């Protein structure tokens, strides 16, 4: 075996042994959307973060790795050219790191979704919930109103 092939083998050994040292890509999926259901004009409705109608996200990745969680939240829902105010409270978010997430008693509760959240991934990642309040006007035009809730997750390297 000449040196060239020895180098090839060494090369692949280096790659094979080094790559696993780096974290697997994190992942984030939407389990539930924030659903207000039917609303009467002039009557606000609040969906608590512990409600079945709260938005739920799952974050996957290497257990123990630290991630940052950032929401990009809308300030209104829209239906065509009509808008309706939506409010996200500064304690309207919760995070659970248990393998069996407990929405009614999460590991980290009453979190501010307007700030960057930093937590370690649990053995099954993290589960994130967020509630909100929609405020239709007295003369809010009828229709189905929607808006995006964007969740961005990133390893911190710790």
């Amino acid at each position, binding site marked *: 075996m000449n*040196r*060239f092939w020895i*180098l090839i083998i060494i*090369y692949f050994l*280096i*790659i094979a042994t*080094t*790559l696993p040292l*780096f*974290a*697997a*890509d*994190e*992942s*984030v*999926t*939407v389990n*539930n*959307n*924030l*659903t*207000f*259901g*039917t*609303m*009467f*004009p*002039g*009557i606000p*409705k609040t969906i608590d973060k512990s409600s079945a109608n709260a*938005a739920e*996200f799952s*974050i996957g990745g290497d257990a123990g790795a630290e991630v940052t969680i950032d929401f990009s939240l*809308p300030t209104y*829902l829209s*239906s065509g050219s009509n808008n*309706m105010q*939506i409010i996200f409270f500064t304690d309207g978010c919760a995070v659970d790191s248990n393998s069996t997430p407990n929405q009614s008693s999460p590991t980290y509760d009453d979190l501010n979704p307007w700030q960057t959240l930093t937590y370690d991934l649990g053995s099954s990642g993290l589960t994130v919930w967020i509630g*909100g309040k*929609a405020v*239709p006007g*007295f*003369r*809010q*035009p*009828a*229709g*189905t*109103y*929607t*808006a*995006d*809730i*964007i*969740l*961005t*997750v*990133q*390893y911190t*390297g710790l």
Partner: protein
Amino acid sequence: MNMKRILNLRIGIVLFGLLTILILFTAVSNSFAQEVAVGSATATVLTALAIASSSNIAFGNVYQGIATTIDNTDAAAGIFKVTGQVDAGISLYFQLPEYLSLSDGSSRMTVSFNSTDCSVDTTGADSPTTMNGTKGWLDGDPRSFPGAAQIGSAGTSIYLGGKVTPSLYQAAGSYSGDIILTVSYNGT
């Protein structure tokens, strides 16, 4: 070993090194890449409420010293029409005047509304003369509407009667006063 082989070997080592660094850099970059999920918030807003005064209470000509009463099932009763989300519960609130006045405000005449002067017709018929108890709430209190009032498939009509009591020396003229009905969804 000739110089050419040594050179090739060195070039190979450098290339492998660069390739390794590239792969590791890519791996590191991926491990710090962002992941983004886009959820949504949704709400369905029901039909907005609308209210209109279909007909005013018309006491017609009255004589000094002689009170005149209009029943809420009389053709001259006041009529309000509420429309919106069918079967939705509503709350109603009257602001009733205590007197009518001439347009220049120079004279007033007492008007009163008793606890049976109002009916709520959930058929939305706008017809006080055909109102009866099967169509909603008959002869109710205009200051205390039924809590279960709701919007019928053709809207809900509110009928209002009342009584004016001109004095013996009531100044002649056309008297009027505002009757304000406020309606809102109660969430039921």
